[in-house]
């Protein structure tokens, strides 16, 4: 199994949107996918199942050694896509357990997911590279970093590079998939310049070729609690995420 964390220094850049739609793209392609919400605010859960606030989830597993993995999995209408919401264990991130033992528990979690036959585990995360997000990154295989294509947002890039470098000292197997430009508006000069500017500044290896356009359908999808691909008129967005999936597969050397 390959675990991919969707993480960014800044909030609101599209992590949850990317997580859901990327998980959907992998699942459509036939991979057995587990989508996990590791953001204590639990937005993947809110978005995909109305009831998720009442469900147990990732934080309950972290906080309670007796909590079984199987009790957390929520199936979706798609056979190849399951999810685990954030759950009830809120505030856990600042509880007493900030230590290597949390990393070990996250590793157990990923080990259990693998043993259940999942091929891909996508983990949505809270903004920042600290706390539980850091622990998840220390345990995972790869990280994808959404970055909003706007001039001011780009300022967080050095901080993010520094943070990831520090993390890699703790997790030498962590693959950096790179920055994924999101909410790109090719028809708006500032957005296009920010996107192209970042591509010029960073080594090509650190920026995904595919980008996520800004589109009102994403908002509509998250309001309805579905991946954007199930809505009318989403063909272009669906294919953008499929290209992204292919790019990730080739970067990580994955094949079905």
């Amino acid at each position, binding site marked *: 199994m390959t675990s991919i964390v969707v993480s960014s220094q800044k909030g609101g850049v599209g992590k949850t949107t990317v997580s859901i739609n990327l998980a959907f793209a992998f699942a459509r392609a036939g991979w057995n996918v587990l989508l996990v919400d590791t953001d204590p605010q639990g937005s993947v859960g809110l978005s995909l199942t109305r009831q998720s606030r009442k469900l147990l989830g990732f934080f309950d597993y972290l906080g309670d050694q007796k909590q079984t993995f199987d009790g957390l999995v929520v199936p979706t209408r798609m056979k190849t896509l399951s999810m685990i919401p954030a759950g009830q264990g809120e*505030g856990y991130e600042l509880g007493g357990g*900030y230590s290597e033992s949390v990393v070990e528990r996250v590793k157990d979690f990923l080990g259990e997911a693998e043993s259940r036959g999942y091929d891909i585990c996508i983990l949505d995360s809270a903004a920042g590279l600290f*706390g539980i997000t850091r622990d998840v990154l220390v345990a995972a295989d790869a990280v994808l970093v959404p970055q909003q294509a706007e001039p001011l947002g780009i300022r967080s890039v*050095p901080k993010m590079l520094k943070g990831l470098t520090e993390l890699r000292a703790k997790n*030498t197997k962590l693959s950096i998939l790179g920055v994924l430009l999101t909410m790109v508006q090719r028809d708006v000069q500032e957005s296009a310049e920010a996107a192209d500017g970042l591509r010029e500044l960073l080594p090509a290896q650190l920026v995904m070729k595919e980008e996520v356009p800004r589109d009102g359908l994403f908002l509509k999808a998250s309001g309805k609690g579905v991946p954007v691909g199930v809505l009318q008129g989403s063909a272009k967005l669906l294919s953008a995420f499929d290209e992204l999936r292919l790019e990730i597969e080739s970067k990580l050397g994955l094949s079905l």
Partner: protein
Amino acid sequence: MDSINPWLDVDELNRLAKALMAPADAQQTKKVEASKSEGLIRSSASKVLAKASEMAKRTGVITPVVRKAALPELGDWLNAHARCQGLCVVNLDGDVLQAAMPNEEWTKLTVLAATTRHRLEEGKSSSLRLKVASESFLQFISVMTARGPLLVGLLTQNLLKDSQLIEFSSLVEGISAPDQVEK
């Protein structure tokens, strides 16, 4: 390109990108022991404050939040009410303005608390407290200053009471008032 250059130091960015792409085992591994209490530096409150202020000036990241002349004042207060082992000040973007903590992890926890503040407070403005070692408590205290809201991470041997927290924040607020801040 022009629109983002002013926001970034391109050389720095290149250096960071190279470091990130270098094989991970080639990097030197800095080990931070988060939970070990024996590593604690038990310095007095005023020393901790002076160090924070000095570091902030030296790195030139910010102008010191705490006026130098006011340091003894705050130091005295802390000495009288709690054994201060460390202190850091961060803004709500997670930028560390000052840090004199015996352990980097506790500064990071303060950053985490500051950037996730809306979740932690949920209506209450009382401070959050953590036991981080057998004789160390980390308390997060929000302080409204001329620079906007800041979060102070205070590492002490004894927990401060609510009334003391209020005293502490008003002391910090007082000494960071605009006309008092050193240039």
